[in-house]
């Protein structure tokens, strides 16, 4: 059961030229997708069937948006789950914080969804795609906060590298506005899990020329870190500028 709130009509809808991601063609579902992306019907059948769960992020700003969208889907999925079935030792005040963070991530996710496909006609992800929460221990406060910290730290780490890759200045400015909200989330959940652990040395450089600056991760590093949670789907970003 998918945890994200995407259109259930994914299979019925054409993936237009502005398609968010490329799913390779093997399953019945993905065959339909590829057939509508402009590929010639005379394309020879590949000798080796491609992986039906391989999702390749496209090049350019659209790929950047897609990557950011996946992060927002992951966060919104986690926080929605925390609100739907909160750990019994998560306090009322903490649940309110998670509700706020859920709201923020839903806003971010929907803005990215709109940026990718302004007329909202495309389903961006397969219906059975989900950010898999099974390996998190969401039954305890500590597990909830650890999961939230892991995601927020990753997002904070990648945005300083992601933002300069945008060629569209308006989009870059908008996602700059969301990036500090993620940093606020990160500090908040870090402080809840371990008081005073905001901006600690594990996430901020403590020596050298970059001392006092957040430790960064490339989009590829983030996809590797999140790969277990996207399984069975495999997300790759081989195209510029994400791949750089």
């Amino acid at each position: 059961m998918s945890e994200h709130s995407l259109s259930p009509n994914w299979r019925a809808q054409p993936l237009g030229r502005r398609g968010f991601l490329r799913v390779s063609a093997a399953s019945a579902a993905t065959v339909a997708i590829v057939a509508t992306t402009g590929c010639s019907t005379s394309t020879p059948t590949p000798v080796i069937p491609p992986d039906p769960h391989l999702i390749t992020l496209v090049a350019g700003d659209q790929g950047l948006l897609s990557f950011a969208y996946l992060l927002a889907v992951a966060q919104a999925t986690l926080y929605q789950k925390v609100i739907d079935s909160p750990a019994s030792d998560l306090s009322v005040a903490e649940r309110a914080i998670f509700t706020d963070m859920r709201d923020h991530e839903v806003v971010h996710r929907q803005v990215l969804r709109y940026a990718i496909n302004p007329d909202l006609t495309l389903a961006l992800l397969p219906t059975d795609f989900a950010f898999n929460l099974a390996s998190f221990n969401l039954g305890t406060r500590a597990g909830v906060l650890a999961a939230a910290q892991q995601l927020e730290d990753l997002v904070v780490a990648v945005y300083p590298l992601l933002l300069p890759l945008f060629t569209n200045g308006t989009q870059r400015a908008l996602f700059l506005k969301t990036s500090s909200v993620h940093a606020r989330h990160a500090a908040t959940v870090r402080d809840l899990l371990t008081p005073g652990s905001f901006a600690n040395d594990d996430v901020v450089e403590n020596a050298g020329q970059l001392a006092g600056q957040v430790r960064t991760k490339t989009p590829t590093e983030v996809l590797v870190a999140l790969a277990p949670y996207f399984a069975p789907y495999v997300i790759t970003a081989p195209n510029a500028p994400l791949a750089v």
Partner: protein
Amino acid sequence: MKLISLLDRLAAAPAAPTATPRRNLLGQLGRAALAALPAGLAALPAAASPKDTPFDAVAQLLLLERVQLALYTQALAVSGLVPAAQVADFQRIRRHQTQHEAFLTQALQNAGAAVPTAPAFDFSGRHGVATNPVLFPNVLSNYDDFLALAQQLEDLGVRLYKTQAFAITTDSQLARAVLRIHAVEAEHAAHVRGLRRGRGAVVKNWPSEADAPIVRPAAAQALTAAATGGEENPTQNLTLTVPIPFGTLLLIRDGTAIHDPALAEAFDEPVSSATALAALALFS
């Protein structure tokens, strides 16, 4: 509040996109190779208004860091002001501000630019004149008053870094560093807000219209305007002309609407450099 935020929005209106002669002056800002610049810089008119050239951007951020650093240095020097349990927090924040100041100073020096002299800072708002009215009472004697000022300066820091992040168009390494520091400022701000909430203030970790306002005299409103003025902005743009249609975007899967203040909370706004500088000038 509404008037102030309106003024702030007017002040934040984008300047005409005409290039100024200074725009590319520090085109190599941050690179050690350019030692030949100082003569040209020295000839700049002293009264040049800020146009967010790379030099202005770094100079403004340096001033911001110096204000923050001075506040934490002075506060940590007052025995008992910061509770023992939080001393380490503010030592960490102060260490980061020291590192940011050193980084920005180095960036100017590497570009061959003159490093502005640090003014003396007075957190009472009296500008060092004992007969002037006190605008920020008890900042260095009452922990809650200290925290309130720290929160506003950290929020302002997030906003000014945001504003300047892409004013530094000519040095991608420096622009990235500004983005990395921007994130650290946001973590500081969220932490200070959390500390205040722990002491009974009605405040979230992110600027929200649900926050209880920090009461300041009229002469100190420039700080409030710079820290959170316009933060309630409900309109965002992905293109210059068409606002994002949040009304059609924001139904959660089961039809539950998001909480009303959450939309504005989801975006931290930038601040115009004029507004930021007016606030920082309260302390020197």
